[in-house]
């Protein structure tokens, strides 16, 4: 047997032992269907959102406080990003933290609330029917509450607390606040006559400041903190390395939390102190970048695949994003067309360039694994099963990577100069890249329907070496 090699590490007699009685999953492996349901929903929302912008590019070419911009942003954030992230968390949190999901049944129930909630919200925003926004927002919030309960109960089972668990715990706290803030704004605006006290309190804040504060809770609190935290587990796993400095990693998550708490308050109050807190977030991201660089320098696998490269490209886009954040939070920044459009550039670069691009990179690792595990794990050792790399085309992946970057750059420049035609060109390129990505995902999912199994070659059935 080729893999028969001597074992060098010494057995620690007092080390924790895992047996059939103590391992978390029992005889049932985690479901592949549930994360895929969230993933497919997320991808459909992504394609719909991209198509929407191509048809109506003026949404991005003008300031973002408009019903269409808010509707498409919620389609993008709730339909695409939240669906993907929540589905991935149901799959990854138990594996990353070595425990079992508290309840798969609750996750299924959340899916129903989530789908109904975000579809209704997007329709209600586009029709600017704020009562319906509040109603469907409440439905979505019930789903989010179920999600938080399920993940929190899962975290209570974690045998070894680490930086990944801290980031997951922080993220579910922030998403609760993000949803609560959004719901309070929607309820105050639509029920101001029946709830005058609440409305009076909410209306004390500048509406755009409140919207931006709500957006940062979700974007930094949920997506960015999770990307940072989960990558401390996944990047070493995919590049065959180790976390190099757990203290530095922990500080990056602590500073992200601190910076966001301060940013939320200062953005809401339009305080000049928001520059200080945006710099705390930038410092956290600098520590993250240093730790990632150390992890990559210690890696045992020289060649990085394009999933990891895509993720790292997205992470490097945090650098221009940080500069724009500092500029926009500069005290006394003049308000003109360019600085107002720079807010669009900031939001688009953050949500599309950093968060979405990072997620697409990770999805090239996660979806093949979920499909492969669900389809082929039963057959290993009994039949010849394809490798992960055989589940999709790496060539198409590279093509979509470059088209995405070209589309992103074009769209950002077009937005800054309020040029709707150029926005259409840029988002057209992004949509083309996503179509290629979608084709690759369909290639992966085809294995669910038509597994590619071959009989074991006779030579591989060798007798064990005793």
């Amino acid at each position: 047997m080729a893999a028969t090699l001597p074992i060098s590490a010494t057995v620690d007699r007092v080390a924790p032992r895992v047996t059939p009685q103590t391992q978390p999953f029992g005889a049932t492996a985690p479901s592949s269907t549930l994360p895929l349901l969230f993933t497919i929903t997320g991808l459909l929302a992504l394609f719909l959102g991209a198509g929407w912008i191509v048809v109506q590019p003026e949404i991005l070419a003008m300031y973002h406080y408009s019903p269409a911009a808010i509707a498409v942003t919620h389609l993008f954030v709730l339909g695409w990003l939240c669906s993907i992230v929540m589905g991935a968390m149901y799959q990854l949190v138990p594996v990353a933290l070595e425990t079992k999901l508290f309840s798969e049944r609750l996750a299924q129930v959340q899916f129903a609330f989530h789908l109904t909630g975000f579809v209704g919200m997007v329709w209600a925003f586009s029709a600017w029917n704020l009562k319906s926004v509040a109603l469907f927002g409440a439905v979505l919030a019930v789903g989010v509450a179920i999600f938080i309960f399920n993940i929190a109960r899962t975290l209570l089972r974690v045998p070894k607390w680490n930086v990944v668990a801290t980031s997951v715990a922080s993220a579910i706290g922030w998403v609760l606040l993000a949803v609560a803030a959004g719901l309070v704004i929607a309820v105050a605006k639509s029920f101001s006559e029946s709830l005058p006290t609440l409305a009076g309190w909410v209306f004390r804040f500048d509406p755009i400041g409140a919207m931006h504060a709500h957006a940062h809770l979700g974007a930094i609190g949920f997506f960015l903190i999770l990307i940072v935290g989960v990558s401390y587990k996944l990047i070493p796993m995919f590049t065959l390395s180790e976390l190099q400095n757990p203290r530095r990693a922990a500080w990056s998550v602590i500073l992200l939390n601190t910076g966001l708490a301060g940013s939320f308050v200062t953005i809401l109050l339009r305080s000049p102190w928001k520059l200080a807190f945006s710099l705390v977030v930038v410092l956290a991201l600098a520590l993250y970048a240093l730790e990632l660089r150390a992890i990559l320098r210690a890696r045992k696998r020289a060649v990085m695949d394009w999933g990891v490269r895509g993720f790292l490209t997205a992470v490097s886009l945090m650098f221009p994003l940080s500069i724009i954040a500092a500029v926009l939070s500069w005290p006394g920044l003049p308000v003109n067309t360019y600085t107002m459009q720079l807010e669009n550039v900031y939001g688009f670069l953050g949500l599309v360039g950093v968060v979405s691009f990072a997620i697409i990179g990770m999805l090239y690792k996660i979806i093949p694994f979920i499909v492969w595990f669900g389809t082929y794990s039963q057959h290993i050792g009994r039949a010849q099963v394809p490798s992960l790399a055989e589940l999709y085309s790496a060539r198409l992946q590279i093509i979509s990577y470059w088209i995405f970057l070209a589309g992103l750059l074009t769209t950002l420049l077009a937005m800054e100069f309020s040029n709707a035609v150029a926005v259409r060109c840029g988002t057209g390129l992004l949509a083309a890249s996503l179509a290629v990505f979608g084709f690759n995902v369909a290639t992966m999912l085809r294995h669910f329907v038509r597994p590619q199994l071959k009989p074991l070659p006779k030579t591989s059935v060798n007798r064990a070496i005793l």
Partner: protein
Amino acid sequence: METPAIQLDARGLEPPQPMMKILEAVATLPAGATLIAHTDRQPLLLYPLLEQRGFTYETTTQSDGSHITHIRHR
């Protein structure tokens, strides 16, 4: 009496290759023999598959953070 043992080093591999190597090895594991598999990470997703195939196992964490799993027929 000491049972025959087969050692399998599945370290330095990206998932799911360690799981594949271990499941391929247990497919030819003689009755009474033990497979001693060495992995970088705790093989969490492997456990349900081993149980479904009629194996029992015990994993110990090593001082270097890697894991050793003893696998044999139930």
